[in-house]
């Protein structure tokens, strides 16, 4: 009904909250991409020869590749020569003490509600803050190092733990994996590195907070998490960007390695600038995330709440190599206005008795398009593999789209694979029912949407679940009539 659409419209036309930017003196690479730029970045970061060689190899590979076009997303071709591949705050010389960080940079994070000051933090969450191309600070390092846990920026890890980086970099997402992974491998500037030694249960949540500030600059970070035998870590990432008219590129790579009995829980709350009401600007989010359950009885769990970005192209995946290993994917993807999301997962069952679970909740409003794309692959030797997938779509209004592209590829007859899918429209009846009990329409939509996404939100650590709930409501604000 038209009234319904009106409510939807109001509810989805809320402005983006993190659209501001800050002026700071930056150390920037010239625009464009060529071998010289890659050498420039590598030199800037004082990298060893092997890493420069790795980057150059990635660049050559990337040059041979073509941009993938299979996703259900439409955008003008990206001009890779008009993007800047490195921008760092000038004063951000990495220090051991947070007191030495430029207070201007700390202010950026304070404004985002992320205090890098350890004394001020109430909850025990260690943060690595990445601004444009570099990490500006990592908290709680001393506490963590007592447990033998390494949590630092990628650049530091290259210098301090080259043996680990050399061993694991590109081991889960190889250079040639896909177009954006190859690009990232060539130009990545920073990111987080996390290493949990054997038998250690990480005593606090680890998190990386990404912020793009500079204009015309892409962010290409790399995260590498290595969980040794019988260890456990819960990791979070959050992201925001200023409101700009042009599209900015974000092409990240996340690799997770889980040894025998290890468990890694990776949660994302993605809130990059989604573009304005008319679809102008916004982040192009082309991300490759993959984990390998290398050892028996290991487990990797992805949880994502995707509310931002003009375009989201991302499929956090699990390679279930170890016997009895478990992969999980919980996702809520919200699109509004002219946002486009093509997201899902891949569960690749290689080991015996491996299990995977996929719960995807898409919410589309405005003129947005929201696609779930998932693959469940059971290899020949994966006896008794089991998968359960549930893909639900919720539509708000009549000008948006929801799509589901499940691929199921089974080569072992003992596999048990279940796929459930539903599509529903947020009901006028539901909203009226809430209204009749005195609940305003916007709160009614928030209530209904959060109820719908509950199974996924429940997977997030408590304080982030609350944040995510607010974010969902905010993203959809103005979308119902």
């Amino acid at each position, binding site marked *: *009904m038209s*009234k319904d659409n009106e409510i939807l419209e109001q509810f989805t036309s809320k402005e983006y909250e993190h659209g501001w930017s800050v002026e700071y003196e930056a150390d920037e690479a010239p625009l464009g991409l060529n071998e010289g730029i890659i050498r420039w970045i590598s030199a800037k970061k004082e990298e060893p020869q092997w890493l420069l060689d790795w980057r150059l190899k990635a660049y050559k590979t990337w040059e041979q590749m073509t941009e993938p076009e299979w996703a259900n997303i439409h955008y003008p071709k990206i001009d890779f020569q008009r993007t800047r591949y490195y921008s760092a705050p000038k004063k951000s010389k990495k220090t051991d003490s947070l007191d030495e960080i430029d207070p201007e940079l700390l202010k950026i994070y304070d404004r985002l509600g992320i205090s890098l000051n350890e004394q001020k933090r109430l909850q025990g969450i260690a943060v690595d803050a990445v601004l444009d191309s570099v990490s500006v600070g990592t908290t709680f390092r001393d506490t963590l190092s007592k447990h033998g846990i390494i949590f630092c920026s990628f650049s530091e890890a290259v210098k301090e733990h080259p043996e680990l980086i050399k061993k694991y970099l590109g081991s889960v997402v190889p250079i040639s994996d896909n177009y954006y992974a190859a690009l990232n491998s060539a130009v990545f500037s920073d990111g987080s590195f996390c290493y949990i030694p054997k038998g250690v249960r990480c005593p606090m949540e680890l998190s990386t907070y990404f912020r793009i500030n500079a204009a015309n600059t892409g962010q290409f970070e790399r995260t590498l998490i290595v969980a040794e035998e019988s260890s456990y870590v819960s990791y979070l990432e959050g992201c925001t960007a200023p409101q700009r008219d042009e599209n900015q590129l974000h092409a990240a790579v996340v690799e997770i390695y889980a040894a025998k009995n290890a468990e890694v829980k990776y949660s994302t709350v993605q809130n990059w600038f989604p573009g304005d009401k008319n679809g102008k600007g916004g982040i192009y989010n082309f991300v490759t995330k993959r984990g390998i359950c290398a050892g028996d009885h290991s487990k990797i769990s992805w949880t994502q709440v995707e509310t931002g970005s003009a375009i989201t192209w991302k499929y956090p995946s699990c390679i279930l190599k170890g016997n009895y290993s478990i992969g999980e994917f919980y996702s809520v993807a919200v699109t509004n206005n002219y946002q486009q999301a093509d997201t899902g997962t891949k569960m690749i069952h290689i080991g015996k008795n491996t299990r995977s679970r996929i719960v995807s909740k898409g919410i589309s409003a405005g003129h947005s398009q929201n696609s779930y794309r998932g693959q469940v692959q059971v290899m020949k030797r994966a006896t008794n593999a089991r998968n359960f997938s549930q893909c639900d779509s919720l539509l708000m209004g009549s000008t948006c789209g929801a799509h589901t592209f499940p691929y199921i590829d089974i080569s072992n007859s003992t596999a048990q694979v279940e796929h459930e899918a539903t599509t529903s429209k947020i*009901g*006028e*009846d*539901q909203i*009226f*029912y*809430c*209204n*009749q*009990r*005195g*609940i*305003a*329409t916007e*709160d009614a939509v928030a*209530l*209904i949407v*959060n*109820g*719908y*996404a*509950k*199974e996924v939100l429940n997977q997030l650590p408590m304080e982030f679940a609350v944040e995510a709930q607010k974010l969902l409501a905010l993203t959809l604000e103005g979308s119902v009539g």
Partner: protein
Amino acid sequence: MLKITNLHASIEGTPILRGINLEVKPGEVHAIMGPNGSGKSTLASVLAGREEYEVTEGSVLFKGKDLLDLSPEDRAREGVFLAFQYPVEIPGVSSTNFLRTAVNQVREYRGQEPLDAVKFLSLMKEKMKLVEIDQKLLSRSLNEGFSGGEKKRNEIFQMAILEPTLSILDETDSGLDIDALKIVSNGVNELKSKDNATIVVTHYQRLLDYIVPDFVHVLYQGRIVKSGTKELALELEEKGYDWIKEEVAGTAV
């Protein structure tokens, strides 16, 4: 408390209500009866503010305010409660969470402090007894997988929590077995006071054995064609609606 004057309403251009006049005073129970398609549920929906219905003529005053001018949520906050014939399901939202949101929005509108979790729970506990509703049911998703009887009991439970001035029960008896009907009616009776009023919309006289009305109105072709006391309901039960239809046809000629 409620004064409906010459109310006309239509849906998608088709007139359903064609001049309703009704006055309800505090402490009264009014029953609206009538054959299928006479406009009973439409009247309930129009009073609650459902958008599909367009009011084309007439006025509704509630506690001196123009009810038709208020949004559905403000009508609720002013004290109008509709017990739905078909309560909707809201997956993932517990009854408790739903009701607490509702109570606090109503309280905010009335300039009262919100109830904290502890106070709200004790309010729930108190009201749960009234309709013999189980706490387990209230921690489940709202109405999801509830039986017909559970849904209706939950409606009356919500009514108990929200303490409306005017309650409209839309076919609350449909789908209830005799035990559930007694529990629901008992709840409604317990909530009655000299300050609030109830409109019972029903098909059958059965419910009126338990919720005894002060007035009975027969709705036919969008008008109240006959009003009386509870004896009228018994007469309808016995004779059906045909004689009313004939009477109406007679006056029309």
